[in-house]
């Protein structure tokens, strides 16, 4: 392994770039992030002959204009890292459009090889491409490949390595952009070269082009580098702009784009591309679209597919999720029997094992969800969903692609916000994406459901189904309205233009699906796992310390002894030997009751309990007493915790979320509870701070801590206002 090369893979979305990357690197790849943005950075290694090639999979882009994060990332990568060779993957069935990007790479002058992919698809569509002729006219090596089957890949890499060896200097291509611009370009290029204006990083002609295109990003860099010459260039461009506007009502950037396509057309026309079939003929993909995006059948098929995804994810993941839960409860049990009672054991079980279990318990769910998304995305269907739903979601400042995230988070009651937040990655417009990932936690996820079911069962038992349905609708309405408000305030800004390609339908490759599913699941385990463990321990400490004072402890010990003292010697003996007598049972009952009262006292005395009690002065406006407060504080960790904490607070001991009968009865009989309070609590639980796993994911996906804090603070304040409103109005009306 003597020589090492850096190779970048670049190309249009849907040109088969990822397929090629997977075929080249297989499992020898890892995913990271480009600093400061959420674009995935994939790297891998490939060996050919005696060379070791370090491959970077650049994000899929249509051009090098700074239109989206992806384009900026790809462009910066090329300039800052100067890869030895760029493999530009090009879709042979959509050659003209794909070559637009190639043309821009050539203007930059990067050493390049064109991988002419999907030769098989092109042939089927009656498009005949002469790759040798194309290579000759472009002056760039062109290798025909079929990335899916691996055909031509080895030859491609051999050619790429040769280019990397021999083309060390960047040689920008000069094409004509029209007489008027050409003479100006020559002038400006001389100025740029004379002043050595950014010439270390960018070819002079490229800088001139970017100024002509009024590329904000490049101009702001120019302003930093040399404001004088930058201003001069801008002035010259402004003059020609005005002139072109008046004479031909066009603009320099339009002119440049026009001539790039002109250059491409002139090459393709020289017998590079032949059509053997009429191109207006309907392809299979178009025929599928006739049905799948049909005005009537389309929405129905979409609902069925989305419902199918939901069913598949939550039904089939239930079994492995159960295995995970069984494993962790076994682990908890083992620790319980091995260690002596005390804080160490309590922390290991309630803090560490429950915490990690909480995160890993989601893993099968996440895997199934990502598998479905990968399937929908790779097949091309997800783009159709965005296309069909866009009109509705745009009204709320969102994007057609947002629908997936909402459904997964619990749009049909019982999803999970964690995969929902992660599903927003398929959204390409940053503001719409932020608004989506901040509002999906409002949906009724599977962890909120048992809590809602408990309260509905206790207070609104006459119309359970109707109430559940109403709460699902309420979640949608609130989430969409909040998204609208966010888009008008914090995330204000024009809707990102919806220039979306509908790629032809394709059968996804199995290995591609597996790789995508696994890499995203692993990212989740790594990120969420570390954060949650810490927080889970903190929460355990808050609900455990400072514990009962020694006086209180003494009172409980005395009461316990009093109970034991009341019993006849036979009863005590029966208790010890495990013999079940009526007396023994009564004794056990009394001891259990005492232990529960003791737990309640300890919880009230703990930091969480003290917070709950001190919050009473505020929370009374929404009708919450200290018991409810503690449970809701616990719900910050995970919504399931609300039930078990309420159980402890009402001296019922541990309550199983699956069997809440006794808790429902207790709440029903408690004079502090009524329908209005129950509804106020329901509203609060639906909309307050997302659980910690979700917050961790929001931070990861939004790329900044502040959004995690925002989600917790804003949602809680918002939920509290709603609950207060419900409670105040409700108590006056009923």
């Amino acid at each position, binding site marked *: 392994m003597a020589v090492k090369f850096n190779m970048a893979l670049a190309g249009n979305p849907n040109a088969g770039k990822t397929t090629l990357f997977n075929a080249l690197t297989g499992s020898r790849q890892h995913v990271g992030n480009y600093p400061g943005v959420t674009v995935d950075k994939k790297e891998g290694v490939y060996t050919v002959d005696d060379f070791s090639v370090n491959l970077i999979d650049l994000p899929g882009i249509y051009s090098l204009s700074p239109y989206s994060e992806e384009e900026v990332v790809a462009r910066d990568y090329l300039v800052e890292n100067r890869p030895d060779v760029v493999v530009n993957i090009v879709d042979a069935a959509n050659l*003209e459009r794909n070559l637009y990007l190639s043309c821009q790479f050539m203007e930059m002058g990067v050493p390049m090889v064109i991988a002419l992919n999907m030769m098989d698809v092109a042939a089927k569509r009656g498009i005949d491409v002469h790759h040798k002729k194309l290579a000759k006219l472009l002056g760039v090596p062109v290798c025909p490949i079929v990335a899916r089957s691996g055909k031509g890949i080895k030859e491609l890499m051999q050619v790429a390595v040769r280019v990397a060896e021999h083309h060390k200097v960047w040689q920008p291509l000069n094409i004509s952009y029209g007489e008027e611009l050409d003479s100006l370009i020559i002038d400006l290029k001389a100025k740029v070269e004379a002043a050595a204006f950014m010439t270390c990083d960018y070819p002079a002609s490229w800088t001139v082009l970017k100024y002509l*295109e009024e590329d904000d990003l490049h101009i702001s860099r120019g302003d930093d580098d040399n404001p004088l010459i930058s201003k001069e260039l801008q002035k010259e461009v402004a003059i020609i702009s005005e002139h072109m506007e008046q004479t031909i009502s066009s603009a320099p950037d339009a002119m440049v*784009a026009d001539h790039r*396509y002109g250059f491409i057309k002139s090459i393709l026309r020289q017998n590079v591309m032949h059509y053997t079939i009429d191109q207006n003929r309907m392809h299979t993909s178009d025929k599928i*679209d006739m049905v799948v995006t049909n005005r009537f059948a389309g929405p129905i098929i979409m609902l069925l597919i989305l419902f199918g995804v939901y069913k598949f994810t939550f039904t089939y993941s239930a079994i492995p999720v159960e295995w995970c839960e069984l494993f962790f409860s076994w682990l908890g049990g083992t620790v319980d029997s091995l260690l002596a009672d005390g804080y160490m054991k309590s922390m290991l079980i309630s803090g560490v094992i429950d915490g990690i279990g909480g995160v890993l318990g989601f893993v099968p769910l996440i895997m199934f969800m990502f598998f479905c998304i990968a399937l929908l995305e790779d097949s091309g269907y997800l783009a159709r969903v965005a296309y*069909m739903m866009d*009109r509705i979601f745009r009204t709320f400042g969102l994007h057609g692609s947002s629908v997936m995230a909402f459904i997964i988070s619990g749009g049909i009651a019982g999803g999970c916000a964690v995969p929902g937040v992660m599903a927003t990655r398929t959204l390409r417009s940053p503001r719409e994406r932020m608004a989506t990932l901040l509002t999906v936690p409002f949906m009724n996820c599977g962890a909120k459901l048992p809590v809602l079911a408990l309260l509905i069962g206790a207070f609104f038992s006459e119309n359970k189904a109707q109430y559940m349905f109403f709460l699902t609708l309420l979640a949608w309405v609130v989430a969409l309205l909040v998204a609208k408000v966010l888009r008008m305030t914090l995330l204000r800004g024009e809707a990102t233009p919806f220039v979306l390609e*509908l790629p032809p339908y394709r059968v996804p490759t199995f290995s591609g699906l597996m790789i995508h599913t696994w890499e995203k699941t692993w990212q989740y385990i790594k990120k969420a796992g570390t954060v949650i463990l810490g927080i889970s321990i903190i929460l355990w400490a808050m609900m455990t310390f400072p514990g009962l004072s020694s006086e209180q402890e003494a009172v409980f010990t005395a009461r316990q002894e009093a109970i034991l003292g009341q019993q006849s010697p036979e009863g005590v003996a029966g208790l010890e030997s495990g013999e079940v007598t009526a007396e023994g049972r009564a004794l056990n009952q009394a001891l259990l009751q005492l232990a529960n009262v003791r737990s309640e006292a300890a919880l009230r005395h703990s930091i969480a309990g003290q917070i709950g009690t001190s919050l009473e002065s505020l929370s009374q406006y929404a009708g919450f007493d200290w018991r409810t407060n503690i449970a809701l504080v616990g719900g910050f960790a995970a919504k399931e915790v609300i039930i078990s904490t309420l159980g402890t607070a009402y001296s019922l001991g541990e309550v199983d979320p699956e069997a809440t009968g006794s808790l429902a009865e207790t709440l029903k009989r408690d004079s502090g509870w009524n329908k209005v309070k129950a509804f106020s609590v329901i509203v609060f639980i639906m909309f307050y701070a997302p659980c910690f796993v979700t917050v961790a994911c929001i931070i990861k996906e939004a790329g900044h801590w502040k959004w995690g804090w925002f989600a917790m603070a804003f949602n809680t304040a918002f939920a509290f206002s709603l609950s207060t409103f419900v409670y105040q109005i409700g108590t006056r009306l009923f």
Partner: protein
Amino acid sequence: MAKILVRNMQKHQQGVVTAVKVGGILGQRIREMGLMPGSKISVQGRAPLYDPVAIRIMGGTLTLRNAEADYIEVEVQD
């Protein structure tokens, strides 16, 4: 021959782009995707709520919201 906006094109109607009347980053993106004077396009369909519109261009399918399609002027056969 008549010049109309993409919004007013019928399904499966063909035409040739005559002007893209928007500048800046949106105009650039529209042109980069191949929608520029001289390009042959046809309307492949519309979403269930009549927006966005799917356009066939250069062998691919592109979708645009009506608000964006309104910048694109097309010459069609009467």
